């Protein structure tokens, strides 16, 4: 079995964060206490176009929700997944089908099969990581709360 660490390469994580303009969040909830809502809210604050994918929602964070990735009528750069691991292979197939550039599986969404499927189709894949935390680590302000970003650099930080 492939370990999640195989899909946690810092260079890949940063490439995805920088290349992504539109992120489809599968399983995005309208409940403001859910982790998916925190991530969607944060992504919008930081300038990403967020497209909810959730058949049980009509709209989340003011954005129209689609039942499936294949229903989205515009290009998607990143597919970010808040679903049970068993649902991931089908989502990965859809991500490949709509031409997404990357597949991101959130904390505990561990699916080596789904990850391999996307990786073989040429997508960048990140697994068992949080999009919000990784953005905050490299581009945002995670350090203001005393978290260990792991970033060590003598270069002046760009605003």
């Amino acid at each position, binding site marked *: 079995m492939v370990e999640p660490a195989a899909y946690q*390469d*810092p*260079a890949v994580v*940063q490439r995805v964060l*920088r290349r992504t303009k539109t992120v489809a969040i599968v399983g995005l909830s309208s409940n*403001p*206490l*859910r*982790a998916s809502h*925190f991530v969607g*809210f*944060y992504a919008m*604050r930081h300038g990403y176009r967020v497209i909810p994918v959730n058949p049980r929602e009509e709209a989340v964070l003011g954005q129209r929700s689609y039942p499936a990735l294949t229903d989205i009528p515009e290009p998607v750069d990143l597919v970010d997944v808040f679903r049970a691991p068993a649902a991931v292979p089908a989502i990965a197939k859809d991500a490949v089908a709509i031409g997404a550039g990357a597949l991101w599986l959130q*904390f*505990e969404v561990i699916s080596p099969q789904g990850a391999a499927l996307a990786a073989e189709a040429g997508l960048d894949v990140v697994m068992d990581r*949080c999009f919000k*935390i990784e953005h*905050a680590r*490299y581009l*945002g*302000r*995670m*350090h*203001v*709360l*005393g*978290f*260990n*970003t*792991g*970033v*060590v*650099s*003598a*270069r*002046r*930080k*760009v*605003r």
Partner: protein
Amino acid sequence: MPEDLHTEREFGFHTRAVHAGARPEPGTGARAVPIYQTSSYVFEDPESAAAYFNLQEYGNTYSRIMNPTVAALEERLANLEGGIGAVAFASGLAAQSSALFTMLAPGDHVVASAALYGGTVTQLKHLARKLSLGLTFIDPDAPANWRAALRDETRVLFAETIGNPGGNVLDIEAVAAVAGEAGVPLMVDNTFATPYLCRPIEWGADIVVHSATKFIGGHGTSIGGAVVDSGTFDWSNGKFAIVADPSPAYHGLAFHETFGSYGYLMKLRSETLRDLGGAMAPLNAFLFMQGLETLPLRMERHVANARAVAEWLLGRDDVAGVRHSGLAGSPYAGLAAKYLPKGAGAVFCFDLDGGREAGQAFIRAMRLFSHLANVGDAKSLIIHPASTTHRQLADDELAAAGIGPGTIRLSIGIEDPEDLIWDLEQGFAQVAALQDG
């Protein structure tokens, strides 16, 4: 390559002690970490303010809860300990009481080493009385003692990497295994070892606490402490409703579910630090960061000097015992070799022949050793527990605490070791004169 792309290189301890947590700040490019002497922060707009208070965005609100200078120290310490983050506090005791307050509820039970620092023992008894906690102190040396003390209500095991005055070295790996089987965290006070000599998280500890006042600051200037979280403990295992359940203070936010492995630290900061208020001052954080930059260099010198002094004491006929864990004859030598290969710390006790009077005469003779109640200073320190910290105790009570009437505690500094030995030698001469007279 983008300007600030994170490299994949694993930097060494010395490099991280100087750099981690402190990138040159964007406004001015100041190379040293600025001392952000401010109580509060102007919000960009009302939406940002709301996002900060809802914990939807990382941002500064008020220096009781977070401060950029303090955050730089927190990140550096977390990095050096191998944790996912840290929260700094006004003192080591504020750090550990806050760490416990965050994870415990009335009726819970704490198993703690009987060799803990006296101030910690007093704090635990106080907390237990006020918060209706069960509390069991055990001899920490045998992992079986930890297992035997477990109850259904046990929620944390607590010990020090290096105890005092006995120099007990904790078998972290074995005690972490007991904690893991019980589904409770192992919390380790790593003050005496510092992350340079031992990183308890690498041996399975879940939470590490520090008095930064000691070797981290290193110069006896400031009081402070910190809690470092490994991020690996499962707070949703059914035993920690107080961490895992929805918080009434944040409209029902379930910290562990929403923030995953960061949930405990978020709760420690956003609830415990916010509500109990034991915040570290920015100036103190700056001084602790200055200390961390030279921590590896100082610790090398501290442990080398301590070893030289301990070995010299061991060779004297008028010394009844030297309780330095790194000495070949120490009952902790094996554990010290495993957990403290760079050196078994710089704080240890030895026993003078003769009673309290001999101890006091020895202290009075010192010229370089400072007579005071602290450890972990660049300056060598000395104290005679029987006439100071433990003076209310009778001799039999002292014995139970592992302290004899002639016990002297040393915290060895970074001076020339020959000078320290010279100073101690004249102390022995004074004791001999007293005994001859």
